[in-house]
Every structure is written in C-alpha cells, then in structure tokens.
C-alpha cells in the first residue's frame, strides 16, 4: 500500500477483460525499467569507474553508483527514488485501438505506483496537490506511432527531475558563446549546457541533442534519442564526429561524477537533426542522469511478451 495522504484526483480507468495481459505486461515493463538498468548503460558505468583515479571523490561516486545499480536490481526496488517523468514510446499495428491502450497504460502506472515501483510524482501545478497515483493532466506521457507490423513495440524511459531541470535550449546565433549557425556553434552551446549543469544533473550524464525543429519538436525528439543504445554509432558521419568531439571535450571539463571532479562528466552524446524554419536555429539539449532507466519490449497485440529490447 502506498503512502497516499489524499484520495487520488483521478481514478485509474478500469481494465477491460480483453486487456488484462497488456496491463500485466505494462506493470512488468515499469518494474524492470525502474529497478534494472539495461546492459549497455551498465557497461558505460563500469568503464567510467575504471577511468577514475583511485582514492578520489570521483571514484568514490562511481563506486556508490555501481553498488546502487546492483542492489536495486537484486531487491527489485527503484534504482532512484525519483522515478521521474514517465515517457512511453509506443508503436502499434495500423488500426489498433490507442484510446483503450492509453487507459490500460494509466491503470498500469497507478498499479506500479501502488506497488512502489514509481514514486507519487504527479503534482497539480496550481494547488500543489500530489495526485497520489501519477495520473493527471500530462502524466504519464505516451508517444504513439503506427507501424506495419502485427506486434506492439513498447518502450519506456523514466527521467528524473534533477536532470530534466538542467536541460537547455539555445537559439543560434549566440553571441555570448560566439556560437554561429553551424555544427561548431552547436558544439559550443552543448558544451555550455554541460558546464551550466555542473553536477546538478546527476552525472555522468547522457545527452540527447536535437539541432533544428521548433521549441517543442526539438525537445521531444531529444528525449526520443534516449532510445538509442550507448554503443550505437550515429548513421550520419558528420553527427557521429560531433558526438565524439563533444564527449571528449565535455569530459575534459573535469566536472566529473556528481560534480565531484574527475575524468567522466558524460557517458555519451546522441545527436539528431530536424529541418528548421529559415528564421530559427534551435539546439535542444536533454540531459539524462547516470540512472538512465530505459527498457522496451515487443509483444503480441494481446500483450504477451515476445522479447525484451534492451537485454
């Protein structure tokens, strides 16, 4: 039973009998995402630990992080107490009922909250009241797409508030940073975002950077980049090079794990470009903390799990 001081403002929708399997699958997806980091992220954390000098505060932070990852998985409890924004990325077969799916998703979120896999994290922005079950206007967030497959592809990212708060959006040119409307200008503002974040985003972090788009598409696409794996190389060689350079230069800033100082400030950088208006040149930077909770699965349309995506 969750610690619920007030009755939820929105009751979870009932789950139709046809959707009990999907409901169970979604609760399981939330549990796994909240408690067990995917292997690619774990590998990055291990590499980062090896790079810190022995006996330093940076090494200490990385050791605690690694131990935390292991404990969370072992006891099946949230890796981080801030279970964050709940971001579902869902691909459904053509003609699939997305309205019912959304309702089942909400029911699963409320259930996972009750079970303690999610913290009560949805607050009325006007009254300050916590809804108690993570349901309310705008929460959870579900991005739908259709695809020409009979399967459901359901991915989930949980993104904590600390790292969300250090995200940044720049409009180029930026005279303060001497950043023009080109890839070098992009590099400069992204490094500035890393500097501004210091240790506040629970580094070492992972960046999702979108060049172009408008103020909303840039930010929402930057979150979608977190679905890429750590080892994935950008298919655009220009962006692959930019990612490498930003990673290397950000790590030379010496901010280090948790801002304690050290060799790893970022674990990875993912960049994509969207077309823009002639008048606009936005660079949208989303910062993901080391507690990079991302998981996904493919399921039959009845919800039976076929395979886990990040295993």
């Amino acid at each position, binding site marked *: *039973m*969750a*610690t*619920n*001081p*007030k009755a939820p403002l929105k009751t979870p929708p009932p789950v139709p009998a046809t959707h009990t399997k999907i409901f169970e699958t979604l609760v399981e997806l939330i549990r796994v995402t909240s408690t067990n980091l995917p292997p690619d992220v774990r590998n990055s954390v291990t590499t980062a630990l090896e790079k810190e000098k022995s*006996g*330093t*505060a940076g090494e*200490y*932070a990385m050791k*605690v*992080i690694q*131990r*935390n990852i292991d*404990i*969370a998985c072992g*006891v099946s*409890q*949230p*890796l*981080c*107490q*801030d*279970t964050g924004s709940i971001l579902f990325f869902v691909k459904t077969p053509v003609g699939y009922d997305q309205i019912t799916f959304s309702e089942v998703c909400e029911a699963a979120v409320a259930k996972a909250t009750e079970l*303690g896999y999610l*913290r*009560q*994290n949805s*607050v009325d922005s006007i009254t*300050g*009241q*916590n809804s108690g079950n993570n349901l309310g206007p705008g929460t959870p967030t579900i991005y739908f797409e259709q695809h020409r497959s009979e399967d459901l592809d359901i991915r989930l990212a949980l993104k*904590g*508030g*600390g790292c969300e*708060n250090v995200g940044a959006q720049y409009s180029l040119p930026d005279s303060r*940073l*001497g*950043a023009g409307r080109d890839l070098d200008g992009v*590099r400069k503002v992204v*490094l*500035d975002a890393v*500097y501004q974040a*210091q*240790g*506040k985003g*629970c580094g070492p972090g992972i960046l999702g950077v979108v060049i172009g788009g408008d103020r909303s598409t840039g930010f929402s696409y930057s979150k979608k980049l977190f679905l890429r794996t750590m080892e994935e190389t950008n298919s655009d060689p220009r962006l692959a090079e930019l990612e490498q350079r930003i990673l290397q*230069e950000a790590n*030379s*800033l*010496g*901010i*280090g794990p*948790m*801002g*304690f*100082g050290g060799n790893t400030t970022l674990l990875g950088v993912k960049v994509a470009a969207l077309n823009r208006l002639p008048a606009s040149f936005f660079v949208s930077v989303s910062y993901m*903390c*080391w507690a990079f909770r991302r998981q996904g699965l493919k399921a039959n349309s009845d919800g039976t799990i076929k395979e886990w995506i990040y295993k």
Partner: protein
Amino acid sequence: MREIKLTLPITEEQVRSLNVGDMVLLSGVLYTGRDAVHKHLYEGKSIPVDIRGSAIYHCGPVVVKTPEGEWSVRAAGPTTSSREEPYQATVIEKYGIRAVIGKGGMGAKTLKACQDFGCVYLHAVGGAAQVLAETVKKVRGVSMLEEFGSPEAIWELEVVDFPALVTIDAHGSSLHADIASSSEQRLAEVIGSKK
C-alpha cells in the same frame, strides 16, 4: 580521503573539524525536508519535530506501509539542493541544524551561513537511492504528510553509516565553487572564447 563517523545530533565543534573532501558516515536521526518544508520554515512556521543539532536531508523518499502497518523506506536518494538556496541560510540560522544533506551543491548564501553558524553541506550520491535506503534502519515518524504529500513530508529517519562527502565546510570552502571555476576556464579554452 578521510573517513569520519559521526552520530547525530552533532556539536558546532564537530562540524568545524570537518573539511571539504572528508567522507562522513552518519548515524542517528535525521529529517527529510525539501521544497515545501523549506518554504514553510523560511516563513517562520513551526514544525512538530525538533531538528536542532541534527541534519536536514533534501530527499523525497519512496515509503510504503508494510502489512504490519510499519513505514518502510524503499528508495531514499537526495534531490537537487539548489532549489533550497533562497531558504537554506535562514533555516540553518533559525533552526540550528548542523548539516544539510543533498546533491548538486549550494550557493554563496548557504556557504556563508555554514561559516557563520557552524554547518556543513554533505553531498550524497544522487540517484543512489538503494545504497542510501539500506542505511535507513527505521522510520521514527512522519510530519506534514497530509499537507505536503509523501515526497515533501518530514520523514524522521534512523540511519546507520549513511555515506556522504563534505563539499561545503564551515571554513568557507566549497568544492562546487572550485569545480565551477576550473571547468569554466577549461570551457573557455575549448570553445575559444575569452573569459
């Protein structure tokens, strides 16, 4: 790194013996308090617990009630402290706390209050909710649960060997200010601006 064991409540003398870079293991009773609690205290309103000499922990834990009716902490990592910067100095002065625990560091006002009134800022590892929850042996009680909701309530936690790093001491030193300054210099080099 020096490793120092402390049992809450602590004295001003103990606080002033700590330096930036010291690793501490806290035992005893500490109190969670984040945005709503800080605003409440800053406005001079009272709380039902005495936090003098103890530590305030910027944390919104995941707490559940066991079938036996006991509170159980399931995850208890720190939240970003800088949001409390407008309030923290006053809370240190008025309520006599000796340690602030959080993540991400705090600013000049808090640094000065730590120096003036004998307090330290202890940085817990952000996101390490399980490592930290393991150190919580008992929930002694909770206040303001109705008003503020679970993450914002004041949870009274009995801890053993809660690990944290001193990043702001009572001598005017701040690791955060040092790192901000060195990284700013390096940033100017890599982006080629003159700062």
